[in-house]
């Protein structure tokens, strides 16, 4: 199909304002938060209804063009980048909260609803949407579902998969399905569970029943300062091992403290090598006891100071610093590469030591702001993209971090997903058989690889190829 015809047809489906075809305007869609991988869609379409999405999908299938679903484009792995052209299908105009059903503890949303705005909307009802990625002021719930996103409070409340009751999804043939509605055990396979985290490769989610989480009765936040990151990491390992269950355990290292200090005037002592943000919540009774025990572990690990955030305003300020720390990195370098990986929590101190070594080896500063309680590291490699050598060293440093993590029993992504960025690392964790099983699942949903092709599966080991290999009777070694 010729491009002008395609654009005409799309305009007939979604209206004039729902199609972005101007080449300059398209450039704003050439990447998501992962600026290392870019690609331009042929056209961007912004539907408002499920019916429109279905019509667009049928058109794309007929034209043989790939479809790339996109929320706010805050993802960090190129998951929402059109690497092989095609039609980008944006959820930006599907941004309605359709129904709050307090009696059933659920809310019905379109995928383009902003995560933070949803929680703000739910506050007067006494609820929140618990997953809270750092990008929550921009990212969409559709993107959260695609990536099975996390956030600081996942330590206690679980990642997005624990908060999705069911989704409406348009499949590759344009049919529309609902995977669930909040009834706890509908018969059949857990389609909601496998769709969550499928990175837009199974279909386009057009609505979702999400779980409401009641706001806790009481919250306490303290900030513990340590001379170095080792003390903070050991504290986290010991808090977890001792069986205490905070709502969040977040670490910022010296570089991150410097950046947020400048931006938020927190007045954190610059001699502190690490700050550990601890939040506990629940019913009022017992919270002080819990906090007392956690604080004692901080002191035992050489804390310089333990500062309670006494007022709501103080708590908000501490959290704002944490959640906007990535933005504050702009104060330190023109570009950063955020590596997302998870290690078993006892391996945190050692892994952080290795991250420091990698920084020295590649001669690039690495800041750390991360979900320590989950063992979810986010080394932020600071560099200048215009400098070719730095560019190369940043990639190598990132690879080094992932290698260390895997050696320590870790994985290649905790909450950002695989997308394009990590697809070639998949073979470090998974055998051909493991990948082929994933490919088989994928093919059941999207047999012609219409949705978001080229993501997750390693280059040269495409999803269709793996599934075909599997059908032909692939027999792997028993590991």
């Amino acid at each position, binding site marked *: 199909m010729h491009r002008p015809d395609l654009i005409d047809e799309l305009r007939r489906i979604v209206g004039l304002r729902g199609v972005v075809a101007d080449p300059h305007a398209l450039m704003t869609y050439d990447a998501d938060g992962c600026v290392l991988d870019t690609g331009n869609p042929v056209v961007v379409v912004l539907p408002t209804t499920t019916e429109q999405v279905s019509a667009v999908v049928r058109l794309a299938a007929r034209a043989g063009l790939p479809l790339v679903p996109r929320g706010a484009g805050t993802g960090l792995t190129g998951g929402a980048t059109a690497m092989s052209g095609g039609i980008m299908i944006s959820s930006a105009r599907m941004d309605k909260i359709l129904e709050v059903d307090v009696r059933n503890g659920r809310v019905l949303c379109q995928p383009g609803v902003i995560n933070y705005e949803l929680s703000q909307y739910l506050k007067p009802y006494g609820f929140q949407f618990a997953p809270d990625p750092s990008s929550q002021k921009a990212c969409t719930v559709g993107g959260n579902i695609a*990536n099975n996103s996390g956030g600081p409070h996942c330590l206690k409340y679980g990642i997005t998969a624990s908060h999705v009751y069911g989704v409406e999804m348009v499949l590759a043939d344009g049919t529309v399905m609902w995977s669930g509605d909040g009834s706890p055990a*509908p*018969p059949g*396979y857990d389609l909601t569970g496998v769709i969550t985290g499928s990175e837009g490769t199974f279909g386009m989610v057009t609505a979702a029943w999400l779980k409401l989480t*009641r706001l806790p009765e009481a919250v306490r936040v303290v900030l513990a300062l340590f001379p170095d990151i080792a003390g903070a990491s050991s504290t986290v390992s010991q808090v977890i091992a001792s069986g205490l269950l905070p709502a969040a355990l977040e670490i910022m290292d010296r570089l991150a403290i410097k950046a947020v200090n400048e931006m938020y005037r927190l007045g954190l002592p610059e001699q502190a090598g690490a700050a550990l943000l601890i939040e506990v919540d629940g019913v009022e*009774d017992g919270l002080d006891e819990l906090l007392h025990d956690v604080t004692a572990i901080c002191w035992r690990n050489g804390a310089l100071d333990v500062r309670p955030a006494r007022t709501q305003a103080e708590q908000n300020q501490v959290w704002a610093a944490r959640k906007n720390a990535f933005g504050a990195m702009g104060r330190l370098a023109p570009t950063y590469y955020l590596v997302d990986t998870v290690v*078993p929590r*006892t391996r945190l101190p050692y892994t952080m030591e290795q991250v420091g070594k990698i920084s020295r080896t590649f001669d690039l500063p690495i800041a750390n702001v991360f979900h320590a309680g989950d063992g979810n590291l986010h080394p932020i490699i600071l560099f200048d993209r215009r400098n070719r050598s730095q560019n190369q060293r940043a990639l190598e440093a990132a690879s080094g971090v992932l290698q260390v993590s895997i050696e320590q029993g870790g994985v290649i992504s905790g909450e950002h997903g695989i997308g394009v960025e*990590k697809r070639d690392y998949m073979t470090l964790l998974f055998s051909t058989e493991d990948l082929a099983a994933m490919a088989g699942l*994928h093919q059941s949903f999207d047999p012609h690889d219409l949705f978001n092709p080229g993501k997750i599966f390693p280059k040269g080991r495409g999803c269709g190829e793996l599934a075909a290999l599997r059908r032909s009777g692939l027999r792997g070694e028993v590991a």
Partner: protein
Amino acid sequence: MMQLQSEMAALVGAAHVHNQPGAIQGQAPLMRVCPADREELAAVVAVAYQHGVGVVPQGGGTKQQWGHPPSSGFILLDTTRLNRVLIYEPDDLTISVEAGMTLGMLTATLAANGQMLPLDAPLPARSTVGGLLATGIDGPRRLGYSSSRDLLIGVQVVEANGRFSKAGGMVVKNVSGFDMMKLYIGSLGSLAIIVGANFKLIPRPRAAATIACAFEQPAAAFSLIHAIQASQLTPVAVEYLHGSAPPGLEAQAPLVVAVCAEGLPAAVERHVRDVSSMAERSAAVGVTLLRDDPHEAVWAAINDLSQTDALNPDEMVLRLSCLPADLERAVTDASDLAHRHALKLRIVARALSGMAYLRIQSHDAAALENYHHALLAAWPHISLLAGAAKQKAGAHIWGRAIPNLDLMQRIKHEFDPQNRLNPGRYI
């Protein structure tokens, strides 16, 4: 058949191939094969595949009543020799175990380190990890700690032709690739055989208590349930028990709402105070407080109420799933209907989750059948988990319809194109 048996014996040793195993829902297996580890298990599956026979996996066998009877010509693959801890790092709060380990043994292993896996499957002395995952069985504390869906962090499986694959890992947060764990949970062994599982663990609470509130009328019981739901309390279980009061509570009224609080001592006491006074306001006819051994015993008994292993010959077990706010209407329908047909009914329901297990008894098989039909007409998601063979045959045992069945059949076909795993029983 002789050929198959000798090949199996060569793989696992003749002592671990049994000739005349008990039937599964009236269907006699060709043999029962008990591999020692996942390598042997994979080899057994591969040989069965080459011989064109089906495979019915079995852990403790406590939930073999579920689903349709298997199609004939299958081996029973017994996983109970796969009962080892593979990796246990108490300080990481993670464990990896073989699928044939019983929940009871796992619970004891974890308790030694002050940890737990709060899945609460019935009959823990026999229920295995693989079986509770494959059936997706839930327990009362799903309210506080969620189900296996959120606690399973990694899985190892053997697929239909003996191929081994894995997903997830040993970390508590992981989006490396698709979440295959969700696919296998509740798939009733129809996609792959679970041979190992990794879990995220929960520290054992410092304190725990049961507040058991007795009621004469469902409306009063649900007024307590609604009050708890509207509060900021965080009980880990709220069970609605009709005609099935556990030991220690038998003397009470026909209805009991059992609330379990766990956590820091002060938080537990707060729950005891608040739930007790809510219960009084909801016209409870009695409130019993249990701690320590009686507390543990009550929950062990409640967990077992959903068992489908030992049924009376005239008994049927249904599982009803609905939106939480509809549960009151659902259990009222269930008991009105039982009353009308003069059937004996016991209910254990996860009161805030919309899940109820119904145990119905009658000497009149037709009455049971009519009951199932009538209830299904009002509530689409009712699974007939266990009952007389005659009654299950031809009944809609998975509810009125399985939604998105086409898509599920495509998945089944990708994973098991020859239909060898638990053939005929589920998708």
